[in-house]
């Protein structure tokens, strides 16, 4: 039982005023920061995974032949030849319009009708996804294919230029996880200090209860219940504030659709973790309080 049941008459053994003073507020702040760090960690980890999966087996062949007609023919031939290979999952030519639209975002001409943009000698691109996760063999075969169908073309593995970004995001996710762990430890420390302070404040009552035959378990349940309730208030408050912040960020994030930002999301497991954290925190607080109290009471005869 996270919050132990104690008869009403026994609850009166502790005075009505709150035991722990600022504890609920400190716990609320820690819980809010914990949830925000956890949300950041989950979002970043999922982004890193999404990017990693997307780039793991993908290459782009860049054909830079000067003659645009020859360039287009080489691209089409390479796409057809690649698509027929057993080690290729999919081969797709990137249309010039798509390239121009992408570049248009940088040139400030999203419609693609910018004369400067149209005058640029754009390379022909062919995106190729390999079958499976082994890239060494397929890469060698692709190099031979490219040398035959589009001599001089460059093969660009996506992992080469997006890999460092994915690793950075993964590192940030680990850092966020570390922050969650540290704040959990800080919360436990707050509970320990609260329990010890409560014992010190109510030592005469505890001593009296001991002397008339109260067991450690009876006394512990009294204090554990009060500390768990105080902590639960703080956790609830911190959760509500964190949820409001996450909703606000989520609302603003929904307007971001381009690039890596679009890959950020919590997913069902992430949401489950975020929802479970407050409950785990209450359980951790109650358990910490119980162990602290029992350990302290054992020092009294």
């Amino acid at each position, binding site marked *: 039982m996270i919050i132990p049941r104690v008869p009403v*008459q026994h609850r009166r053994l502790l005075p009505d005023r709150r035991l722990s003073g600022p504890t609920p507020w400190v716990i609320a702040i820690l819980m809010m920061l914990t949830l925000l760090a956890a949300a950041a960690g989950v979002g970043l980890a999922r982004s890193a995974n999404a990017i990693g999966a997307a780039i793991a087996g993908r290459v782009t062949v860049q054909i830079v032949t000067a003659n645009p007609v020859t360039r287009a023919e080489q691209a089409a031939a390479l796409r057809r030849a690649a698509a027929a290979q057993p080690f290729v999952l999919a081969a797709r030519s990137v249309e010039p319009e798509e390239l121009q639209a992408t570049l248009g975002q940088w040139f400030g001409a999203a419609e693609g009708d910018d004369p400067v943009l149209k005058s640029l000698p754009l390379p022909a691109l062919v995106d190729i996804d390999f079958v499976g996760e082994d890239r060494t063999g397929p890469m060698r075969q692709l190099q031979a294919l490219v040398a035959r169908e589009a001599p001089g073309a460059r093969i660009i593995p996506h992992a080469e230029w997006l890999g460092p970004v994915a690793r950075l995001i993964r590192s940030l996710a680990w850092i966020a996880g570390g922050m969650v762990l540290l704040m959990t430890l800080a919360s436990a420390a707050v509970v320990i200090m609260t329990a010890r302070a409560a014992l010190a404040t109510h030592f005469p009552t505890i001593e009296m*209860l001991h*002397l*008339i*035959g109260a067991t450690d378990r009876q006394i512990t349940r009294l204090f554990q219940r009060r500390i768990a309730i105080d902590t639960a208030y703080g956790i609830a408050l911190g959760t509500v504030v964190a949820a409001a912040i996450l909703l606000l960020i989520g609302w603003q994030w929904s307007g971001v659709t381009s690039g890596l930002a679009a890959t950020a999301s919590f997913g069902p497991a992430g949401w489950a973790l975020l929802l479970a954290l407050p409950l785990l925190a209450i359980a951790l607080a109650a358990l910490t309080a119980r162990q602290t109290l029992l350990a302290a009471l054992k020092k009294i005869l």
Partner: protein
Amino acid sequence: MLADERTSAPVLWPDARAPRAGDAMTEASPARPGGAMVEFDGVGLRYGPDAEILSDISFNLQPGSFYFLTGASGAGKTSLLKMLYLAQRPSRGIVRLFGEDLVAMPRHRLPGFRRRIGVVFQDFRLIPHLSARDNIALPLRIAGVSEEDLSGPVGEMLSWIGLGDRADAHPATLSGGEQQRVAIARAVIARPQLLVADEPTGNVDPEMAMRLLGLFEALNRLGTTVVVATHDIHLISRIENAQMMRLEKGRLSDPTGALRYPPANRT
């Protein structure tokens, strides 16, 4: 008023309907038939590395007897009582209570024994945020007696100590004598087998002291072993057949040997 009833027990005791704290626990075994309720043998007590404040204390307390513990301030009376009501383990020697060795007894078994001991502290030690009624009910609640079963005995006890109309008063609003009576009621409500009182009359006037002594005497007649630590020599003379233990500089004076070898145990 208490004065009229000081030589009689509360109604709740003779009819044996009142719950006893010991009824709710099974950890502590009863005293051996015919044996001493309390046995101290070669007991010494020291706090930290200092010299012993109690040395070579040996005595037996018989069930249903009345004892006075006297001695000058600092002689070790309170320390001896602390060992009696299990707030302190001895540094050496043997302490047996209700037939069991308490020195080696695991901590978790102590509450069962404590529920068989009533303690009256010199400074009352009432819980300040609880009413007189709740303070008195405390031992029964701790022993697991239901609210339904304890309301009657607690009400009778309140009436018996003359505080029936002040049941909801908190200790801060009670006089010293009233607080003392609540403390005594709390000590005896669960019908303890051993009652230990540390200077129970130290804070009250002589008339009230006699009234309180009447309570102990009534309880003693019902079979409870009573140990009262006091400076008041007049108090001692009021109880017939009471035995006296005297502590001098941490040693127990027992010139007749009655404490160490009571008549019933002599061979």
